[in-house]
């Protein structure tokens, strides 16, 4: 059933991306920020898969690209969380606004 127009998917991706960007820029908790970044990357995935199915020239490349984005997002989240654990051991906080050692 292909009755859903392509613009709906794109709008969904755009809204998701904006929510993610808003969350990443405003939230205090680092874990939430990392989740927001995942949200933005998943918006990209929706875009890619939509274009690969309904785009001007449907091709499998978009889905391949989406696979790579998924893995890279996982790697990025893993590195981010690992660094957060290291930071938590030294500082005992996960709040971004308390990371204030470096400024000037």
């Amino acid at each position, binding site marked *: 059933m292909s009755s859903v127009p392509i613009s709906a998917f794109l709008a969904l991706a755009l809204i998701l991306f904006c929510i993610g960007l808003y969350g990443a820029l405003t939230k205090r908790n680092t874990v939430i920020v990392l989740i927001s970044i995942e949200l933005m990357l998943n918006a990209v995935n929706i875009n890619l898969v939509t274009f690969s199915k309904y785009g001007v020239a449907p091709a499998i490349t978009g889905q391949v690209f989406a*696979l790579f984005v998924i*893995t890279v997002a*996982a*790697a990025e989240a*893993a590195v981010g*969380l690992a660094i957060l*654990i290291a930071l938590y051991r030294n500082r005992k906080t996960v709040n971004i606004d308390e990371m204030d050692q470096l400024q000037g």
Partner: protein
Amino acid sequence: MELLNLYQNNYLIVFVFLCLGVILPLVALYLGKLLRPYKPYDAKYTTYESGIEPFHDSRVQFNVRYYIFALMFVIFDVETVFLYPWAVAYEKLGIFALIEMLIFVLMLVIGLVYAWKKKVLKWT
């Protein structure tokens, strides 16, 4: 235009289900409140833990090792994303993809050996 109608009708069903989903539990809970007797005493307000007396805070901090394990799991779990399409299209891809995948798995094995040597896989 017809497509758009069809599209909107689809969402009408979703909307009906959404309303039903919200109303049903509300009605059920309200009916229960009307019917049940109300006689509170202290023991009734304690947390229910399968009949055992509750002895500490309900919010438990997990050991940080869980996170390390979870990180390891996520990485290796997501890497299978590449193995799956290869397995599905194995017949078509042929020897080239086989070699590529062998290299890929070899890299993963190196990662596993690294984790092993760094004693991430041990609990204690």
